[in-house]
């Protein structure tokens, strides 16, 4: 995942910033508590494919 690309990537729902979790291959929106998966180097920026963060999950 290119750092420069991360500068322009936002959550598709709220257009807020994303946190890149390299080891989990996820892009996380803290506001919506959604983790967007990166599968085979392809970020999947779709709400229906995102993982809902657990209630205790801190990013």
């Amino acid at each position, binding site marked *: 995942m290119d750092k*420069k690309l991360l500068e322009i990537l936002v959550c598709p729902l709220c257009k807020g910033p994303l946190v890149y979790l390299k080891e989990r291959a996820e892009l996380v929106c803290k506001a919506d508590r959604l983790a967007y998966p990166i599968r085979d180097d*392809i970020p999947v*920026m779709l709400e229906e494919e995102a993982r809902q963060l657990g209630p205790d999950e801190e990013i």
Partner: protein
Amino acid sequence: MDTQAILRAYRRYARVYDLLFGAIFHPGREFIIRSLGARSGERILEVGVGTGLSLPLYPEHVKVTGIDISKHMLDIARKRVERMALQQVEGVMEMDAQNMSFRDSSFDKVVAMYVVSVVPDPIALIDEIRRVCKPGGDIYIVNHFRARNPLLAMAESLLSPISKLVGFRPDLDLDRFLEESGLDLVETHNVNLFGYWKLLRCRNREAVAFNPSEPAEQSP
């Protein structure tokens, strides 16, 4: 035409897409990318990048990002980028073109080839393209618009229901499209198939700001 139907169509087509459509659409892709006149370091978005047929055509001094709704198409695009070591490609991503996950004004140029007629809501697509394109940036659209010839136009209207099966809407009217989308047309060219496909070069007059349909929770 709903997104699921489009996805099903593309899953069917992904493997044979290059063979079926590559040759037909290639002259259009070459023409449009040649005419971009992109400056060094400019960031370009290709909406509906599909299997990435056009990615090798971009000059090496630009930064290209491609999005598509079909995972099956994007897998092929990603492999192409790897195999050809395309330095100009920043990434390919799975996104809904009507609801992209880019900041406002992220791109200097946006290219949308053969996509306007295959999304559920063409005007919503253009609004979203204008949002992620910088004000004053160029928007390139290659699409088919309804024939001006009344007989041809009638034939296309009759074919419209078939579009559900093949994932394509043939009866979009150019004037109405321009009016409703608020795009500033700079020039048009006919590309390939005897001008069936038109290239529209438009200027992004002003960026459209993100406007959530459901109001987001505001922090106090």
